[in-house]
């Protein structure tokens, strides 16, 4: 029993870490450029597809990863320069609609290039298999690796934002764009870099998701909405909030799906639990969001000055 | 002595390291026109915003007509009898001047959960609104879209909207800001006509307006009131002269 709980907890952590990567990118872009980017999920999708393509083309996992990361970075920056620059001055509604259009565009583009069915690519030998945990449990090497990479990136992100000049520019740009520009910083370049960085994070999440979740058109939006929940719970514009929110959402969703039905089964009849369990489990994170909104609308760890 | 209409005790508001309001004590008597002056950045608008309910203070208390309104939200304060005009013109640009004032009247004329009857057909709203526009001198411009009004006319509209709720206390934030000589003279004459009928707290840079209208003046510097008294007392106060009036006397 503990083995099962431990396994699900780790899965929750793994899911949370991926949500964090996406949430961090999205919240950075929103916090600094005041841009609502619904197409963030598309970048995640691009990352996954480029990894599959890269793997199939080169036969090497690491090259596939490299191609995915570099490719998503490039795609992100191109999209920023070509399509998103005009949107910075527009209101959020226009940004929502324009990026919604981008989603349709990207989903269809991917479908044209790779078809609509889910793609699979095999993991290299050194990422397959299980590792032993205490309590007799085993855990897939790959998922453990995802957790490790995600936490490492989270740490690196914190370091960059809190301790480096670039991070300082980012935080300054978030609170006063015109001032930063007046100081001689090339704001356009900063924006493109930040956006590219956010895209790379999304691409990383995408390529890590490849072996675990289905790689198909529309995969970005499924996870994007959960990323929204993370941001609302954590507090917008805040990386710490994104981290906390992502862990909470990851855990609640994973554990809920795994244990709600059996838990319900102890208090109500099996038939009711069978029907209600999955239904409620799928709604759990949204209900959690509603509770946070009711109690603390600005989120758990909102960015300072918001 | 009668209790003051407005009592402020120990009001404080900080933005990070900047103490915009740094322990303000002030009494304003009913019927008085009280001017708050001070150099730029002294925290005058911040003070007004805390009085109107647009900003919540970090510490201190505000009592209005004997009631503690420190944390009362802005709409509720309007219903208690406070009204405010904004330093940076804040009107409904796409509505006509008449619509603007009628909305302000509507807020105090029964409830607004009416879904069918056109608000523009309600005489109960339109007539008082027209009357107020006449009073402030905008009668002829009632049907002009607010965005098309001249700057000075928009400032007049601000005052009109504040009057619409028939407030006991008016908080006027630089009412003649950006107005030409003639317009400000007209506005000052108009505000002088309100003296005694209503209690007014006036934030102004225009010394002409201040010394014409004020019964008492408080001087705000770096979030603190350094002097408070009659216009003569303030004119004579050496601290005030050096901190503030010295600059103004030259300009």
């Amino acid at each position, binding site marked *: 029993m503990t083995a099962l709980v431990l396994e699900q907890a780790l899965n929750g952590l793994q899911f949370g870490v991926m949500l964090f990567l996406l949430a961090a990118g999205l919240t950075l872009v929103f916090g600094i450029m005041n841009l609502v980017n619904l197409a963030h999920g598309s970048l995640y999708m691009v990352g996954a597809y480029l990894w599959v393509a890269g793997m199939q083309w080169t036969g090497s996992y690491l090259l596939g990863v490299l191609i995915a990361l570099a490719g998503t970075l490039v795609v992100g920056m191109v999209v920023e320069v070509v399509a998103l620059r005009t949107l910075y001055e527009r209101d959020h509604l226009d940004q929502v609609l324009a990026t919604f259009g981008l989603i*349709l565009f990207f989903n269809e583009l991917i479908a044209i290039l790779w078809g609509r069915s889910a793609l699979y690519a095999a993991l290299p030998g050194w990422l397959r298999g299980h590792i032993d945990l205490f309590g007799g449990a085993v855990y897939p090497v790959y998922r453990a690796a995802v957790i490790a990479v995600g936490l490492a990136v989270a740490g690196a992100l914190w370091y960059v934002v809190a301790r480096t000049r670039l991070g300082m520019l980012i935080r300054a740009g978030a609170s006063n764009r015109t001032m930063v520009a007046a100081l001689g910083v090339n704001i356009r370049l900063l924006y493109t870099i930040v956006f590219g960085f956010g895209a790379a994070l999304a691409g990383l999440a995408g390529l890590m998701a490849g072996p675990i979740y289905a790689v198909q058109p529309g995969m970005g939006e499924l996870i994007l909405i959960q990323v929204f929940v993370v941001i609302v719970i954590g507090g917008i514009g805040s990386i710490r909030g994104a981290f906390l929110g992502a862990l909470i959402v990851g855990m609640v969703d994973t554990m809920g799906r795994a244990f709600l039905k059996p838990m319900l089964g102890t208090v109500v009849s099996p038939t009711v639990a069978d029907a209600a369990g999955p239904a409620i489990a799928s709604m759990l994170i949204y209900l959690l969001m509603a509770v946070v909104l009711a109690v603390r609308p600005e989120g758990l760890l909102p960015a300072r000055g918001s | 002595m009668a209790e003051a209409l407005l009592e402020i005790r120990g009001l404080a508001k900080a933005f990070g390291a900047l103490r915009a309001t740094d322990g303000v004590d002030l009494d304003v008597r009913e019927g008085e026109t009280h001017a708050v002056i001070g150099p730029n950045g002294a925290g005058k608008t911040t003070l007004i915003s805390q009085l109107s309910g647009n900003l919540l203070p970090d510490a201190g208390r505000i009592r209005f007509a004997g009631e503690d309104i420190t944390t009362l939200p*802005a*709409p509720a304060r309007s219903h208690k009898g406070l009204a405010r005009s904004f330093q940076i013109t804040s009107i409904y640009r796409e509505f006509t001047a008449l619509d603007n004032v009628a909305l302000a009247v509507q807020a105090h004329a029964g409830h607004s959960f009416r879904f069918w009857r056109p608000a523009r057909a309600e005489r109960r709203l339109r007539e008082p609104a027209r009357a107020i526009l006449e009073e402030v001198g905008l009668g002829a411009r009632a049907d002009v879209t607010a965005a098309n009004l001249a700057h000075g006319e928009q400032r007049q509209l601000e005052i009109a909207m504040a009057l619409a709720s028939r407030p006991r206390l008016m908080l006027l934030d630089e009412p003649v800001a950006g107005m030409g000589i003639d317009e400000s003279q007209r506005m000052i004459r108009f505000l002088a006509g309100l003296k005694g009928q209503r209690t007014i707290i006036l934030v102004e840079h225009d010394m002409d307006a201040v010394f014409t209208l004020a019964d008492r003046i408080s001087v705000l510097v770096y979030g603190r009131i350094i002097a408070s008294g009659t216009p003569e007392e303030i004119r004579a106060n050496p601290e005030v002269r050096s901190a503030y009036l010295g600059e103004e006397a030259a300009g």
Partner: protein
Amino acid sequence: MRLPPRTIALCAALACLAAVPPLAALLDQPFYLDLFRRIMIFAIAAISLNLILGYGGMVSFGHAAYLGIGGYAVGILAFHGVHSGWLQWGLAIGGSALVAAAIGAVSIRTSGIYFIMITLAFTQMLYYLGISLEAYGGDDGMRLAARSDFSGLIDLADPWSFYYFVLAIMTAFIYITHRIVNSRFGMVIRAARSNEPRTRAIGFSPYPYRLAAFTIAGAMCGVAGALLVNHTVYLTPEFMHWTRSGEILFMVILGGMATSAGPVLGAVALLILEDLLTGWTQHWQLYLGLLLVLSVVFFRRGLAGLLPGSRDDG
């Protein structure tokens, strides 16, 4: 009485829509009757969204939820043998209103991007709920057992009757919305959108008004949902898919926000465009997506903004 150009255009549009069934019969193209009926149903959804978005400034990305609630209310009752249109539609309207009030209660305390994300999230929640309802078809959905029965007053199985029924409802909603936005209530909503600090300063607290508007809009869209399920004779969670919310949003923007004609024009334009594109290529979403981006970038005031007298509808 001189009517403004916009009203004339709207009346012309309504007249054209009224002429569709006989024209379709004349040309022996029943497809057009179907198409325009569908357009009008979505126009009703767009009209309801326009109330809160165009006039109220509330960017709800979750409006499709009420299409689902309306549709499922009718479908579930029909599944259980309750075919009375009165009961079904009563549940559709009441259920939508209730859910809108609940979602609105927590969402409206936020604004801007939060509000967008939250409304999107709640719709997704309902979508997942729909999928998990295995008894009612789950993922695949299910056929509508029978059309709503209005005790013989209207026969929804007759294409013409159903068509004019939808037209009547749409026209009624246009009129009702017109009355609402010019009433005291409507003025508060519009004022809150125009200048919220000023609105609070004069004594209005926007929250209760916005919540009421949100609820009304939800209920109106619930009617659209009930109509939609009767039209498609099929019930699926796709009614509530978030991309559908995006479509309705786009209809409102494309048509021109805060205008009476806007939602109708937007629905006509978008759905006809989709129809044309679908006929042309299976990759129509590529072009639609591109068009969306371009139209947002270049086309600020929507189709209704092209008509003379372009001002806030009053």
